[in-house]
């Protein structure tokens, strides 16, 4: 799960990280008042989850409160990639001597975490990593041992900043790791982290991503979810405990197991079809779950066919069939459903389908079914 800069900023501030003074605003008037309260020149920054807001015109400098109001009125409502800007953050203009990158990320290969810093802040860290890897400082954090103060200092003193700044950076990294760890985050990032001319330091950006599987123990983080930033069908799916990704084609895909659904996408794509979505009904699926899955896919606007691909393991074919029959009896389905089902309780599932009185067609292999689905979508 992602949160906005203004939300991550609050978490950082609570953790004791120095952050630039800033006020969030959702109207131009509120932005004007925020600028007034802060005093002096400010930056007005679009609050969206996607990156690249600067290039898209989502960050504007303003010297007066009136300017800030104007900037906010230009930014609010702006579309940046798939996001519409609903809030801006009005932030004091910070004097900059150096811009750094500081981050903590989950490190899959080392089965731990990595604290990363770069003397080249303010730009995309992946670009720095690719072009000038020597500018990246890294410390591996063993999950049971945690980040040690000396590791944080190793980075602080490695950045070529004044000693006072280096010690402040070390303190910030320790706080950043603490908040990252405490919240089951997968990413905590400050880009840029600024060294002022007087060697004091301050965060002027804030980013955090969280482990979806751990949100159950972080109610206050879960509450920060911005539904406006998410695909409505993905939200609906999440509420039904389904994994859903909108892809934009015209063949609805439902399957059980990420690998199988991914492969279904691959096979449908290879057959010349365009998948509308990825929908994994997961392991232990009740009839209710299958019903919800179908309802969600049916909301895809450009839908021309549905391909239901089930291989029964922990998912039982009878449960899938029961859900399918339930929804088909309750709802008028406007597109053909191509079914491919095998595995646990397949006979029971087939029996339910056959005895349903609904004329449901099933295919023995994925490839066959995919070709049929692609064909139907093409000719619809």
């Amino acid at each position: 799960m992602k949160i906005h800069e203004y939300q991550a900023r609050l978490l950082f501030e609570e953790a004791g990280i120095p952050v630039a003074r800033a006020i969030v605003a959702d109207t131009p008037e509120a932005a004007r008042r925020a600028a007034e309260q802060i005093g002096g020149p400010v930056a007005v920054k679009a609050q969206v989850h996607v990156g690249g807001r600067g290039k898209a015109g989502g960050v504007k400098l303003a010297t007066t409160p009136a300017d800030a109001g104007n900037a906010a009125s230009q930014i609010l409502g702006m579309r940046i990639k798939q996001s519409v800007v609903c809030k801006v953050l009005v932030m004091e203009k910070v004097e900059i001597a150096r811009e750094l990158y500081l981050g903590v990320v989950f490190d899959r290969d080392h089965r731990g975490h990595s604290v990363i810093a770069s003397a080249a802040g303010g730009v995309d860290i992946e670009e720095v990593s690719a072009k000038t890897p020597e500018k990246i400082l890294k410390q591996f954090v063993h999950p049971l041992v945690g980040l040690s103060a000396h590791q944080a200092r190793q980075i602080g003193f490695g950045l070529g900043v004044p000693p006072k700044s280096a010690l402040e950076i070390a303190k910030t990294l320790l706080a950043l790791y603490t908040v990252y760890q405490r919240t089951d985050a997968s990413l905590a990032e400050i880009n840029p982290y600024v060294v002022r001319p007087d060697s004091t330091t301050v965060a002027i950006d804030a980013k955090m991503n969280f482990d979806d599987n751990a949100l159950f123990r972080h109610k206050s983080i879960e509450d920060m979810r911005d539904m406006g930033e998410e695909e409505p069908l993905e939200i609906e799916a999440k509420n039904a405990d389904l994994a859903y990704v909108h892809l934009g084609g015209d063949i609805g895909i439902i399957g059980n197991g990420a690998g199988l659904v991914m492969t279904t996408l691959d096979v449908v794509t290879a057959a010349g079809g365009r998948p509308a979505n990825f929908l994994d009904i997961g392991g232990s699926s009740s009839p209710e779950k299958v019903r919800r899955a179908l309802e969600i896919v049916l909301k895809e606007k450009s839908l021309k066919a549905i391909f239901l691909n089930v291989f029964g393991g922990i998912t039982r074919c009878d449960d899938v069939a029961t859900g399918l029959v339930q929804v088909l009896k309750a709802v008028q389905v406007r597109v053909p459903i191509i079914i491919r089902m095998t595995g646990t309780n397949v006979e029971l599932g087939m029996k339910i389908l056959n005895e349903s009185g609904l004329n449901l067609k099933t295919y023995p292999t994925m490839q066959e079914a995919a070709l049929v689905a692609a064909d139907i979508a093409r000719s619809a």
Partner: protein
Amino acid sequence: MAILVDETTRVVVQGITGRDGSFHARQMKEYGTNVVAGVTPGKSGAAVDGLNAPVFDTVRQAVDVAGANTSVIYVPAAAAADAILESAEAGLRLVVCITEGIPVNDMLRVHHALAVRGDKNFVLIGPNCPGVISPGKSKVGIMPGFIHKPGRVGLISRSGTLTYEIVHALTQAGVGQSTCIGIGGDPVIGSRFTDLLPRFESDTGTDAVVLVGEIGGSDEELAAAWYTERKRRIRVVAFIAGVSAPPGKRMGHAGAIISGGKGAAKDKIETLGRHGIPVASDPAQIPELVRRAVP
């Protein structure tokens, strides 16, 4: 021959009184697996429909009283990491964790707590996986048993249902399996390709191994490196899911996410190919690739 599970496997089912736990305990028993006990804390003495295995409060009791040597875990995500450690502490040699949705930090704790214990013989399979089956001998997991057929091809897969798809194809083509292992698609898993390939290499009952990979991580690349590190007895073929997956989107599995330009399917396919491992472009091709590898 087979690896990990066989006729000597004596299974304790953690979470046996749950819907999935009881269902799959029965399924395993029907397949012929020795299901010797179940564990649900606070429900010792409970009866589970269709099973005569006793239910205990702790895995330790299942070991002491029922002689369990292998555990399979169906407990909810919030309690699953602890269930793994419980079985390790109780002295089991193999733990298969079916549960999905375990937080990354919980699995990091498990991984490093096991490292601290330092028992090199302990094997964890999963979490978020279908389990292990040695066809005709023992099934410890949730895979539909009837699609398998005893034989000489091993399989290690990061995917769940896709594995069944491929096993089904093998069986229909007359190619039997020695042991099929779903290792799970999470970012932190107990055993990776390179932890299990050496076991197949040492198993004289296995001639070839099918690797079923997917986008994310670099386990396939490590497996490729293992394959050419020295001369190997076994042949390896592979399939990679997620060729058409858009980057940055999480596809169900926590592990199935491409980020930072790492872990894309096409890179994995390219690396495997470079190391002499044929990669199928469609699961249905796998039996043919196996036949060519082990004529």
